[in-house]
């Protein structure tokens, strides 16, 4: 059920010019290669990809944290791998993915439960994209600050 992109409800029908009353079969593009496109579909695609990436990270993360039950040294050794600039970049990617998934999830809830949700789904998408940028710019700055100092810093 949740696999259906319900958020495309307000996507307008293609406005091809009708030359006759009879609908003629589409020959220019094979049907079914792409869904209806635009914001409704791409937000759904991004929701899936960010969800899967986060879920796979979650498996790794529960297991690395479980090392606190083995010994403080083994936990600290593994956590130290998180503290290098390359993994730091991937963390920023993870935070970006989770933040998108969270904001778009709230948008999906609004589409499903708010009576005007389907009508405003596109405006809501661009709103959450705006919120994402506003949060991610300072967020990425603070997250990468230490790595930047390690790589190029004077101290």
């Amino acid at each position: 059920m949740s696999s259906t992109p319900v958020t495309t409800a307000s996507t307008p029908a293609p406005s091809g010019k009708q030359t006759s009353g009879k609908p003629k079969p589409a020959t220019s593009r094979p049907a079914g290669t792409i869904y209806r496109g635009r914001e409704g579909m791409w937000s759904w695609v991004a929701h899936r990809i960010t969800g899967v990436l986060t879920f796979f990270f979650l498996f790794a993360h529960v297991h690395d944290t479980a090392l606190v039950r083995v010994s403080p040294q083994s936990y600290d050794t593994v956590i130290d791998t998180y503290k290098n600039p390359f993994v730091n970049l991937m963390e920023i990617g993870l935070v970006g993915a989770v933040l998108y998934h969270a904001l778009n999830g709230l948008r999906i809830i609004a589409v499903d439960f708010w009576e005007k949700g389907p009508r405003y789904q596109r405006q809501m998408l661009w709103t959450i994209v705006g919120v994402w940028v506003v949060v991610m710019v300072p967020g990425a700055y603070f997250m990468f600050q230490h790595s930047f100092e390690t790589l190029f810093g004077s101290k």
Partner: protein
Amino acid sequence: MHSPIPPVIEAPRSAPNRRRRGGTNVELYAWLFMRISGIFLVVLVLGHLFIMNILDGGVQRINFAFVAGRWASPFWQVWDLSMLWLAMIHGSNGLRTIINDYTRRDMTRFWLKALLYSAATITIALGSLVIFTFDPTLN
């Protein structure tokens, strides 16, 4: 061909029988769970990411002693345990939907779900065990 069960012909204008024969509401509950757990996870996960990655030096300050300090408080134990269970079930159900969408052979679907449910069960059990049996004086 004789069917053992005679077809039921409903009386005219009778209320439609919306519930499929033999069907369950599992998918409805799964759909609802995704939305309810999602609201909780927005707070739990974004809070977790903010504290761990951005606040007060971010990941640079995290080590065994930091974890010990946090899990000394029941508040953070409950936070982390709720987050573990909700995120694992939410993610497992999401991946279950994706497996259902893209697998074509019944056996592929069966084995991928078997792998998913095993991995999720082990991970939830391991994470819960670690939170409940954490020993700050280890070593």
